[in-house]
């Protein structure tokens, strides 16, 4: 399974570098590769149905107990199939959609990175790995939403999505860590099977749920999803309806066996799910932007799914799994159709929609089929999902009854919206500005296929029953398997009656739709988007205040504060620990027997004296480097050639660069106030004395000889090098070196930014 991820990430690099030269070849082969991955995963269906659970492990950082570990059971296989199948369709579609865009290579790169991380997310067994993939999906989603980076709206929407989801991501990370700590294991497979009772740990539950709710755009974090519709249509179809927003649902489903019995878990899922379902539905009715309507329906459906998981009994869970699949199918198809219409007719406004069906028959047909699925008509899978849910809800207590009423209302609204959408598509209101024709094969085919799969699954649902059974069994703690009945016709029972009621109500709502919109407009829904903006503004002003308070912008003041703090801290540590008494001046040691050591000391002494005496900056600089060279010589004398060489070179380069900077500064130093001069002198002197004392006390401790011996002995056999210092740098402690390199590069960028800020030019 690790190889699957490797293939996808490799694909993203290929897209980035080669897309410009061979767009079509690469696009089609990419879609086929992802289809191949889908087929690869279908190979696991039989073992999973037999009840096997597959764990694969690749060594990553064994010293930290972090390995790339994948866990495949019914649930993760279900999502992996979903992500890979949709991925190939979306890639195919994007070939047509992105044709002619000049930055399309980046688009495909981000899209495939997202695909890989989404598959990684659903497969990973290690919690940290899961979190890493979770964040990669957030980041790639940010790039994809603001892909159209010339538009300010797109940039803002991307930032909003990133801030919201990564806020949730942090909460999730904390929750996962706490959970791992409580269970003594980072492996999901172990946690799921262990007997640790996590139910009742409210902190963990709320942290994890915050993460899931932000990702799945649930109340009160739902505001980012409609704004994210700035993204190109393939992104909306793939990330914001079929896959990424389902990551939250995935995690809730994944952890349901652990937390399922907890009352906080159940009640918050129920409450948040129901609220989101209703809010999304009201919003959808209000809007006229086609993609906005679809996004709001997504919020609403995800809410319904979450509430269903909250009920927790088998029937509801079965319904949730199938409903999730249904939603992914019709929503992706509708988004793709909306993208086609947007591209050809240049409008997404439902009121201005031209008679699309006549001009674009294939797109129109696909959209119509998807609308029927949205309405929940037979023989679509959507019909079956709804039947199961009605049945599940009507059999249980008053809470279920209440939710059932809300759910029927929502479904009636969906029915109404489906009618509205398809009506708009069939009989457009406005005249076509110019003759539009249908999009190419690659753009209508995926939408059509997605809509058709809905029918195929609906008709042949019985064939897939065993697989759904194994998916649902991953959602519960109980090991016995519950049969699912996926046939279309059950006879006239309660759920059929409820379905008929839904259709009638939906039709009625459609007839009265104008008055309905007016009524909903009167309902003053709180604007969470505005709330988000004011929180952001508040944070920004607080940060500004803090910056003004801390950052005076004067170098001398910073140095004073830094050195002052160092003095206080060091002195405090030493006085607290009573370490001053241990300091002894040992003049008899080896170090003082080396006569050559005195020459550099003399150099340092002379340098220091002249620094203190002169008032010209240039002279001070030269004298300071004299001190530096003296120190380098000292290193050389005491057998540290590498350190000495580095010191020499660093001294030289700082001298040169400093000399350049000096050109811009006043020639000589002046202290306007005598008091300030004394203060600076005092700080410097105290700091010098304390450092000397610290060094002297360090001499008292024999450094651990085992460590030195280890490096010296291991350097050649393990590091293949005779220079111990260098072997340490590039082999034993290579990760430290790598970090320092990154810091250095960031510093360079910072310097450039600072200089450009003052000179007001943009130069790179």
């Amino acid at each position, binding site marked *: 399974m690790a190889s699957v991820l490797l293939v996808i990430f490799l694909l993203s690099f290929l897209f980035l570098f080669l897309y410009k030269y061979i767009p079509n070849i690469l696009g089609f082969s990419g879609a086929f590769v992802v289809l191949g991955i889908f087929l690869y995963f279908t190979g696991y269906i039989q073992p999973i149905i037999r009840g096997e659970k597959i764990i694969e492990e690749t060594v990553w950082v064994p010293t930290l107990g972090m390995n790339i570990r994948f866990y495949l059971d019914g649930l993760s296989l279900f999502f992996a199939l979903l992500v890979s199948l949709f991925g190939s369709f979306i890639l195919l579609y994007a070939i047509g959609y992105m044709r002619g865009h000049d930055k399309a290579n980046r688009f495909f790169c981000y899209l495939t990175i997202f695909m890989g991380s989404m598959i990684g997310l659903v497969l990973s067994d290690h919690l940290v790995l899961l979190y890493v993939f979770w964040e990669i999906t957030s980041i790639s989603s940010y790039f994809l939403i603001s892909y159209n980076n010339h538009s300010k709206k797109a940039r803002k929407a991307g930032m909003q999505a990133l801030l919201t989801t990564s806020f949730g991501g942090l909460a999730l990370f904390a929750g996962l860590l706490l959970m791992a700590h409580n269970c003594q294991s980072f492996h999901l497979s172990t946690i799921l099977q262990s007997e640790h009772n996590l139910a009742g740990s409210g902190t963990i539950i709320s942290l994890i749920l915050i993460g899931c709710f932000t990702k799945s755009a649930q109340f009160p974090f739902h505001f980012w999803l409609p704004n994210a519709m700035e993204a190109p249509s393939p992104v909306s179809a793939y990330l914001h309806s079929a896959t990424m927003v389902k990551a939250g649902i995935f995690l809730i489903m994944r952890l349901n066996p652990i937390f399922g019995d907890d009352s906080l878990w159940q009640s918050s899922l129920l409450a948040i799910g129901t609220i989101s379902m209703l809010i999304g539905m009201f919003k959808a009715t209000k809007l006229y932007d086609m993609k906005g309507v679809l996004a709001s329906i997504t919020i609403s459906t995800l809410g319904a799914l979450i509430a269903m998981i909250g009920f927790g009994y088998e029937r509801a869970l079965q319904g949730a799994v199938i409903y999730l699949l249904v939603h992914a199918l019709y929503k992706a198809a509708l988004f793709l159709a909306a993208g086609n219409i947007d591209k050809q007719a240049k409008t997404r406004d439902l009121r201005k929609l031209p008679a699309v069906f006549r001009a674009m028959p294939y797109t129109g047909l696909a959209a119509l089929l998807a609308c029927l699925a949205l309405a929940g008509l037979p023989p679509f899978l959507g019909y079956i999902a709804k039947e199961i849910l009605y049945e599940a809800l009507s059999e249980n207590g008053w809470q279920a009854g209440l939710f059932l009423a809300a759910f029927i209302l929502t479904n009636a609204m969906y029915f109404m919206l489906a009618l509205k959408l398809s009506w708009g598509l069939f009989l457009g209101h406005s005249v076509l500005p110019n003759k539009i024709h249908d999009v190419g094969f690659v753009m209508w085919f995926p939408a059509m296929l997605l809509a058709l799969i809905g029918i195929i699954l609906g008709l042949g649902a019985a064939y897939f029953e065993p697989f759904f059974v194994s998916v649902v069994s991953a959602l519960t703690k109980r090991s016995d398997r519950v049969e699912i009945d996926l046939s279309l016709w059950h006879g006239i029972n309660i759920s059929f009656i409820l379905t008929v009621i839904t259709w009638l109500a939906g039709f009625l709502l459609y007839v009265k739709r104008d008055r309905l919109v007016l009524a909903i407009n009167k309902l003053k829904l709180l604007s969470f988007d505005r709330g988000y903006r004011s929180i952001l503004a508040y944070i920004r002003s607080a940060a500004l205040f803090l910056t003004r308070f801390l950052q005076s912008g004067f170098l001398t003041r910073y140095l004073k504060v830094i050195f002052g703090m160092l003095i206080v801290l060091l002195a405090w540590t030493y006085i607290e620990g009573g370490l001053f008494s241990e300091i002894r001046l040992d003049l008899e040691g080896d170090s003082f027997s080396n006569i050559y050591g005195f020459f550099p000391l003399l150099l340092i002494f002379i340098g220091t004296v002249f620094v203190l005496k002169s008032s010209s900056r240039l002279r001070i600089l030269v004298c300071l480097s004299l001190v530096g060279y003296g120190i380098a010589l000292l290193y050389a004398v005491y057998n540290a*050639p590498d350190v000495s060489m580095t010191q020499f*070179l660093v001294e030289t380069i700082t001298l040169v660069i400093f000399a350049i900077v000096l050109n811009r500064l006043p020639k000589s130093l002046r202290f306007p106030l005598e008091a300030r001069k004394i203060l600076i002198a005092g700080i410097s002197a105290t700091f010098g004395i304390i450092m000397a004392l610290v060094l002297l006390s360090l001499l008292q401790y024999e450094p651990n000889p085992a460590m030195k011996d280890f490096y010296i002995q291991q350097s050649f056999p393990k590091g293949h090098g005779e220079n111990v210092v260098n072997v340490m740098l590039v082999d034993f402690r290579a990760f430290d070196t790598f970090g320092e390199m990154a810091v250095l590069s960031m*510093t360079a960028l910072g310097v450039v930014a600072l200089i450009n800020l003052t000179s007001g030019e943009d130069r790179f």
Partner: protein
Amino acid sequence: MPIFLAYSLYLLFRGHNNPGGGFIGALVLSIGLVFHMIAFGVPATRRIYKINTMVLTSVGLLISSLAAVSSLFFEGVFFEAIWTDIHIVGLGTLSSVLMFDVGVYLAVTGSILKIAFSIFNE
């Protein structure tokens, strides 16, 4: 300049067994280039040596990270050194460690030059 370059490369490759290495080599090279810059100005230095400092830095970081993850492909552990049996006169033994050091060399040179160029240009 050629002397600086040659010497810095010499330092880079001999680093594993004698004093030297990527960081020191990079310092020597950048001192040379900074002197050149002071003498002839930034545009001349950029033109003659065709330097794009950001590219240098990022390529260096990329090479180092590739060296770090390369061991993953050979069933090793992250940052585990890989050694080949190929010896090249003057370069020593080829290995992922050498690759890492080359990355250090490029990244450090790039960063220092970037700072020097922008300060001098001001």
